[in-house]
């Protein structure tokens, strides 16, 4: 992907000559650190930009009682929809669950809790959680069901809802490229909530389409600095 840099290689080793600070971890191992009942932010919009390998492994390991903060629950049995179908989810915080018949069915049957948040408010609440704000004032939802239970604050003669930050135990995100330091970039509409979630969780786990050496993603193109990423899911040997 890019020219080999002696300096980069040098930096990736500590004074004992060992590679240190490695963020790379096997898929199964990292998913084992996520307990039942955890709150997860999961990136993606209708499964584009969703961490499909991490989702698949959560299902395979039979995780239960999850709270997921997502834009949507994708389609039945696809992406986040696999978690819904596996009944791994107790509560969904999302802007839209209409594309997944499983979610609709579980919701109307009272088997799953759904908190609906306007999409722009969801983005700002996650961002607020990531950047240390105590909340934001938005005009969205004033005078609607979304207002219920929330303080209404007037600024400059206009009314706004006080919306509070969202944070999670884990953020599961998907990137186009990751470098060995965990720096990430995203492609087109696969960016969506991923960079916001990468700031708003105690532990951030990223999977990437390609993992490239440090320096391959130019500084101005990196969207999520590697310091935010705790674990990078290893690519696995293809058995094809």
């Amino acid at each position, binding site marked *: 992907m890019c020219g080999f840099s002696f300096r980069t290689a040098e930096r990736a080793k500590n004074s004992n000559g060992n590679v240190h600070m490695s963020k790379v971890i096997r898929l199964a191992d990292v998913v084992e650190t996520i307990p039942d009942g955890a709150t997860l932010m999961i990136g993606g*919009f*209708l499964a*584009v*930009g969703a961490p499909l390998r991490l989702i698949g492994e959560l299902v395979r390991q039979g995780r239960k009682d999850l709270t997921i903060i997502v*834009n*949507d629950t994708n*389609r039945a049995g696809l992406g986040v929809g696999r978690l819904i179908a596996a009944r791994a989810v107790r509560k969904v915080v*999302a*802007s*839209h*669950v*209409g*594309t997944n018949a499983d979610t*609709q069915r579980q*919701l*109307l049957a009272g088997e799953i809790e*759904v908190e*609906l948040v*306007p*999409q*722009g*408010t*969801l*983005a*700002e609440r*996650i*961002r607020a959680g990531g950047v240390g704000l105590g909340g934001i004032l*938005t*005009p*969205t*939802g*004033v*005078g*609607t*069901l*979304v207002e219920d239970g929330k303080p209404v604050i007037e600024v400059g003669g206009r009314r706004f809802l006080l919306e509070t930050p969202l944070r999670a135990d884990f953020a599961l995100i998907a990137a*186009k490229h990751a470098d060995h330091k965990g720096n990430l970039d*995203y*492609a*087109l*509409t*696969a*960016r*969506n*909530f*991923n*960079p*916001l979630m990468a700031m708003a969780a105690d532990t951030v786990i990223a999977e990437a389409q390609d993992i490239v050496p440090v320096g391959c993603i130019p500084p101005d193109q990196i*969207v999520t600095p590697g310091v935010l990423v705790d674990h990078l899911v290893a690519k696995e040997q293809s058995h094809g």
Partner: protein
Amino acid sequence: MDEKTLIAARVAREMTDGMLVNLGIGLPTLVARHLPKGIDVSFQSENGLIGMESLPEAGLADDDLIDAGGTPIGAVAGASAFDSAMSFGLIRGGHMDVTVLGGLEVDAAGRLANWMVPGKMVPGMGGAMDLVTGARRVIVAMTHTAKGAPKIVAQCSLPLTSERRVDLIVTELAVIVPTEAGLELRETAPGVSIADVIAATGATLIIPAVVPTMVI
């Protein structure tokens, strides 16, 4: 011309050169096909792109590029991609010139309900509440009635999308402008009388002295 095409074609005439436009899922998507010649409009997809266009051929679909309804799309030269906070910053911040949305109900105060039917269908509001609250101009593009029942009503029975008064309602029967005084009938569709529109509408309409026929 079927009724959806008629609505889309009429809405398209509201577009002017250089606008930033967001089209809702479903009927509003059709508007892009009917833009007047010579009009260059930027379409935003709220999942993170300005400059969407329909995919020229299915074989060119990119796994990372869909519209907000999940359909693979293309991108014009000069398109830009961004995260969801930026996307809704553009919408809430007054940078979106027009949004075109479908509706379940619009009431006499010009308020739209389009995101849930309690106990029956709870898809969620997605980006609709931000769009209706934040766009400079909100156009509702919908059929005038549903199973014979008026969708334009005295007061919304469904939960509101926003308390903001929308700017324009375009149906297969009429063009209606919500004003402070009430819903004003501005155009009737070809072959549709004022009486037809009144009969299909569940709210009082203000009828000006002259009501021209919709030009497509």
